[in-house]
């Protein structure tokens, strides 16, 4: 139930990246809560089939589909006109640092400028990511929450997505403070559910040389089921009294990597995997990083200590802040959705093959 909201059901709400994996679910949940003035910004109208199916279920709601690119100020102005809440789900997903930066930070700046001039903004809800955290100094098994250190060694980590998201968060804070923008940042762990593109997340393991290395082992996976995640995002976007707060989104009763892999093999299909201890892979990454540096990046630093720690060190996670301040509770657990999720992965695997 929604209590203490900053907007009414008829206030216009903008969702950027509305046809994405999380975006389309956010639209669905907003409509299901009864919000009936929703504007969906999409980069291209070629890929809106799933979103249209959702919209068609809520015929009485006013849902506008706006095609535009956030790198265009005109498109931003059009999208932001009169909106009360903006859900910003746009992020650069490219491999290059400048590409990620441009599609994360420049787009954010344009959106904020337009929002400041053309909207009656009550909340700017920004979807960040767990990728912004650095657990390099954190102990194995230590608690990773909203107070944890943010990554600053982007080049060493060789992670353009992490760079884009950290810089996005930084820009939002600076801009929000300067122009008094009422923002909230949410950081989902690993959203999963029908719609994911990679069947097995890198936190479980990777297959770089033709054999699957199970690197997650007994680590807890910071999963959040897409419905739970989108629900948290929606609620954080409209809840009173939480401006300038940051919330991590993870579910309760999280599965371990070992459990996930076992279930994957059982439901989707067996394959050979090799369990690799964290310390062993850390040494490998360390050597690779050193060679990369010594050779002037003859081999790019794709394997490095910081990325190794971020993905496979293993931490505990908390959603207490989200529960306490926003009043969110995950509606579905991993056990509840296990069958339907693996059924989806089976279909996905069929498509990939």
């Amino acid at each position: 139930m929604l209590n203490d909201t900053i907007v009414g059901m008829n206030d216009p709400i903008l969702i950027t990246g509305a046809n994405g994996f999380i975006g389309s679910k956010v639209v669905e949940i907003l409509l299901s809560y009864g919000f009936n003035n929703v504007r969906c910004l999409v980069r291209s109208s070629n890929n809106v089939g799933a979103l249209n199916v959702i919209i068609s279920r809520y015929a009485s709601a006013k849902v506008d589909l706006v095609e535009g690119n956030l790198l265009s100020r005109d498109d931003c102005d059009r999208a932001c006109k009169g909106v009360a809440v903006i859900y910003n789900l746009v992020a650069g997903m490219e491999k290059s640092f400048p590409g990620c930066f441009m599609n994360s930070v420049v787009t954010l700046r344009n959106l904020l400028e337009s929002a400041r001039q053309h909207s009656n903004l009550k909340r700017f809800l920004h979807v960040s990511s767990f990728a912004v955290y650095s657990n390099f100094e954190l102990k194995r098994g230590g608690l990773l929450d909203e107070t944890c250190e943010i990554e600053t060694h982007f080049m060493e980590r060789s992670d353009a997505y992490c760079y884009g998201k950290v810089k996005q968060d930084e820009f939002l804070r600076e801009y929000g403070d300067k122009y008094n923008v009422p923002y909230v940042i949410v950081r989902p762990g690993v959203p999963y559910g029908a719609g994911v593109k990679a069947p097995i997340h890198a936190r479980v393991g990777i297959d770089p040389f033709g054999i699957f290395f199970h690197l997650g082992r007994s680590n807890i996976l910071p999963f959040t089921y897409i419905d739970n995640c989108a629900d948290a995002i929606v609620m954080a976007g409209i809840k009173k009294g939480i401006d300038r707060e940051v919330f991590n989104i993870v579910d309760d009763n999280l599965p371990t990597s070992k459990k996930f892999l076992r279930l994957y093999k059982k439901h989707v299909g067996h394959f050979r995997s090799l369990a690799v201890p964290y310390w062993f892979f850390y040494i490998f990454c360390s050597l690779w990083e050193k060679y990369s540096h010594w050779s002037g990046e003859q081999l790019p630093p794709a394997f490095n200590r910081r990325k190794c720690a971020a993905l496979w060190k293993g931490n505990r996670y908390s959603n207490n802040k989200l529960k306490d301040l926003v009043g969110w509770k995950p509606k579905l657990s991993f056990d509840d959705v296990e069958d339907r999720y693996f059924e989806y992965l089976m279909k996905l695997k069929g498509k990939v093959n």
Partner: protein
Amino acid sequence: MIKVAIIGCGKQADAHAALIQRLGHCEIVGVCDKEELMARQLHERFRVKNYYSNVHELLERARPDVVHITSPPQSHLALGKLCLENGCHVFFEKPFALNFAEAEILIELAQQNDRKLTVGHNNQFNKSAIQMRDLIRSGFLGGTPIHMESIWGYDLGDPRFARALLGEKTHWVRQLPGKLLHNIISHGVAKIAEFMTGTSLKVMVHGFTSNLLKSTGNTDIVDELRVIIRDGDYTTAYFTFSTQIKPMIRQFRVYGPKNSLIVDDMHETVIRVARTNYKSYLNQLVPPCLYGAQYFDKALENVGKFIKRDLHFESGRRRLVESFYGSISDGTPLPITYKELLLTSRIMDSIFDQIKAV
């Protein structure tokens, strides 16, 4: 110490910045992009002294000796002119200019100002390309090339470049006269231009949109190209650009009156195709063994290069930049002649004109 500046802080700029910082005898004194945020991110990541969003300010305050222009080709003429008029040498990211006319203006201006220009045709400076040039100079072909074949494959699935282009109707590459071809083919065309005189040039073109691109609704982009080129000396060449040929090929074959060479950019190999006089079945038995031995030698050579840290993807760019900087500081010849730059532009103009006409 050579003072270097970079204009255009997008995807290409990273490779330039990383390379310049590795060279040692030069320093990046400023980076510039009309989008200030982009200039700032490059400045922060590469710890460059200053960043600018105004080119005039960059040139006035940072006073670079060399400027690398990595912005889209539509901006090359205006930015190049500005840099040359301010006494800078200029390294352009490919393609050199929007067309032949612009290339001519830039080269003329450089000569008037006693400044130097070059373009990022990195593959022309891979080890294999250099070996090929050495062999040709030593007379291996037995004369000037009679015919050449340049094949340039391109992967539309490359997330760094092609996907951005295909996903965005207003992408700057789509605004180029030759669209995708314009941004890519100068690499393969330059290989041919190097060995042509350019007099009485004839270019015959067939270009079309692949079924794959058509199926994604990108019917405005030509991604398959076949070209026949001939100059006044009757040196001929075929140029092929393809997004559909798999595995992707990037090869240059040059045929002489006596022998021929096959240069493979993907595998960093040069294979000598030499005339043999084996009798009967020996002609089918011995030469394949000799080719096998050549490939084995090349594999060993590449292993050696890897161990010596000389098998970088960017090694061609490094040699090109070093050679360009050497031409500035020591007065050595330019790595790419202006004749080659102009002829590449002329051939490309002709290709785009003919595709447009169809």
